[in-house]
């Protein structure tokens, strides 16, 4: 595949428009990390099993490693870098993760937080068991799960109030 097979695409990420030329086979995850230097979205398995690459596309959580960059054209992509407000005020989920110590190494954390934001928005943070179930697609090998549940519970209450 030569450079001629690169195609121009436009991505709307965190409210900003990015124009780039990529091969059609470039995943959204690699476009973010390698082409746009948005490395907050993590690559843990590159095969849709760990959840570290979770981003929002049109408000829904998707796995960026199983999404081609071209598929995200014309859609609004939100990554961990776009979650806090422009003035730096943290999203309630981010603040709760820090307060509850819901991470250790931090590598799964952006994916956990993006999943948690969607989990609350989906209405699936009604009980600890429901949070556990709807956060089960995001692996954390450090084992922060009980604190993730506590953070999602806390943030869900704050978002609701």
């Amino acid at each position, binding site marked *: *595949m*030569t450079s001629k097979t690169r195609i121009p695409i436009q991505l709307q990420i965190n409210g900003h428009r990015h124009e780039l030329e990529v*091969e059609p*086979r*470039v995943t959204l995850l*690699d476009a973010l*990390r*390698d082409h746009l*230097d*948005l*490395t*907050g*979205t*993590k*690559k*843990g*398995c*590159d*095969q849709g*099993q*760990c959840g*570290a690459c979770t981003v929002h596309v049109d408000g829904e959580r998707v796995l960026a490693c199983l999404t081609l960059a071209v598929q995200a054209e014309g859609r609004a992509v939100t990554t*961990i*870098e776009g979650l*806090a407000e422009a*003035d*730096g*005020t*943290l999203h309630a989920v*981010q*603040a709760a*993760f*820090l*307060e509850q*110590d819901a*991470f*250790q*190494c*931090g*590598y*799964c*954390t*952006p994916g956990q*937080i993006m999943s948690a934001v969607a989990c609350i928005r989906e209405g699936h943070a009604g009980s600890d068991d429901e*949070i*556990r*179930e709807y*956060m*089960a697609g*995001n*692996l*954390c*090998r*450090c*084992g*922060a*799960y*009980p*604190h993730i*549940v506590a953070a999602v519970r806390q943030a869900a209450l704050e978002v609701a109030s």
Partner: protein
Amino acid sequence: MTVHMKRHGDASDGTEAVGGRLSRVDGPAKITGAAKYAVEQRLDGLAYAVLVESTIAAGKVRSIDTDAAQAAPGVLKVLTRDNIPPLKTASDWLGTPPPDAPYCPLAHDITFSGQHVAAVVAETFEQAVAAAALVKVSYDETPAIVDLSDAKAGDGIPIDAMTKEWGDAATAFAAAPVRICAAYNTPREYQAPMEPHGLIARWEGDQLTVWEPSQWLDGMARTYAEWFGVPFENVRLVSPYIGGGFGSKALALGHGAVAAIAARMLERPVRLVMTRPQTFTGYGGRAATRQTVTIGADADGIIQSIVHRGVNETSIDGMWVEPLGSTTSIMYQTPNFSSRQNVVRVNSVVPGAMRAPGENPSAFGIESAIDELAYEVGIDPLEIRLRNYAEQDPHAKKAWSTRQLREAYAAGAERFGWSKRSPEPRSMRDGNQLIGWGVAAGTYPVRRAYGEAMVRILADGSVEVESSSIDMGQGTYTILAQTAAETLGVPADNVVVKLGDSRFARAGVTGGSRLAGVMTGAVHKAASAALDELVGLAISDQRSPFHALQANTLVVANGRITSPRGEGPEVSIAELLASVGRDRIEAKGDTMPANSTAEERYKNYTTIAMALPHTEGDYSRYSWCAHFIEVRVDEDFGTVRVSRVVSALDSGRLYNPKLAESQWKGGIIMGIGQALLEEGIVDRRHGRIVNNNLADYLVPTNADIPDIEVISVGIPDPHSSALGGKGVGELAIVGVAPAIANAVFHATGKRIRDLPITLEKLI
């Protein structure tokens, strides 16, 4: 980006001092995506490498056809054994001088499936992936020894250094009125950190920079330097954040050599990241183990003899010993004891360190066996542990430095409600679910080493701490900020901790749960020296506002300097430095003996040969814990769920309980995975790990884990570390699997001695 956040604690409530529950200081970077991990550096001219691995477990590479790959778009180089320069063999982690033989990270002789045989470097990641699939390797295959149960595996090699014997264990066992004997097996397990192994290597002349997640910058820099025959100082390792290691990121590995060779050949920086499947064979997980434990006891359950035999697998040409008698030999008072161990060579990557290597599988044996003995003699499993409580180290015959295990049993049992346990198996149920309660203890030695740190007080009164040690989630950034803040009398907010660059003050391995004890001691020492100089200047410099006071000492608190009695001025550290014309105070402190040579210092930080034995001097030093676990087993389907965990742990003084509790819970959760889920499955036809991904190698998910309660029962242990802490990170996984196996027995009446405890073993 600027992060605005609520302050979590300030100096007034003690949160920032050592022992306070300060939130992670690296937290804001991690929750906003700002934290750049090693391979996320943006470099001009970066090329991408992808590994090609062997598909047979034993034999030889006959030929490698690289034509199609080399001709593929964007390909810069296809590396094989035939076209890369040989490296030198590096010394091992003890610093043992290596044989004068070349080292090649791309194999010709195949000893396991998944061995690196080629690598493709291309302009883009996608091009490298596509071209790697075009490399055609043909082999002359020979029969492989697929695992420990292979008929060709044999009994293995005795490891005499593992032998621990006292009394006459065989005779005492034969004479004991109560005798039990059982075999306990653990499978291959994998560290599976969320961040895959990988690196960026860049040469500038004969200077090598490696951005790589690392638990040991100086040790890995030594290996790279020896491989390439360049001075140690020419190699810089950079590892600002590490996405989990659990023992797997402490050593330079073959893939690192491949990337560094490619970077040198192409004169471009090269990034190489393992695919998730490659992480199952690119380095070793926990070795599969077999143990037999025989216990002879009297009718009251008092142990007379323990005879223990262990076996672990290693690779065909590498040596890994998983010390299986480590917990066995110290947990209980035993007048007669014998433990021996063999290793068996199989066609596998050489196994490696995974959270509490040795103690963890060892505890599965002895802590299951003591439970079996409890039922045999009809004594409560907690009571039998207390009856056989070791008042001193039974092996080293020395006093414990501290052993709060009795307190752990008491606190855990109280909180769990152990006294309400119905002793008979299958006697507790909730509808279709059989309920079981199990207990087990765990331990981990206090590994000690010398450390070094740089502490600077800057012109604005802020403080900088530098160390080439690392933070992979244990909280190094935070506890070192707390240590410097408390020692110097400044708010923790004013301390910036810089880690993960081998140009900083040297550091030994972050492994064996030693980092916190080593580094808090080193930072305390360096900060104390900086404080002495600051106060000395304030007292004696003629330009100082305190000069006229003729005080013997001054007080520094919250970043301000006063006299002890309050007379005289009160000035900030910044004002004092300005008044005496200094722009900084700098103190490098290390805890090595004062007369240490440069060679000894190098050896201390780049090998583990100078680690201090945990039984040195008059004391035996260990962390301790007791786990109380409830399981619910579906009577029809045999599915096991852990529904409640209460663990009481003695890690001595905690430098930051909030972060220590997180590590403990993480260890317990990894232990739940070990007990119920985790197992590398070998395809016996090909000697290949077939579940080499995160959907088939099951690690716990959020839905598998209940709320977990941890209780600290530790007291400061002055014999274990400068500030009184003992190890935290590995302790809590030890004893979880047997506690669950014991709970499963209580629930079902079935004793499972092979991990993991999966449903087909219960129905």
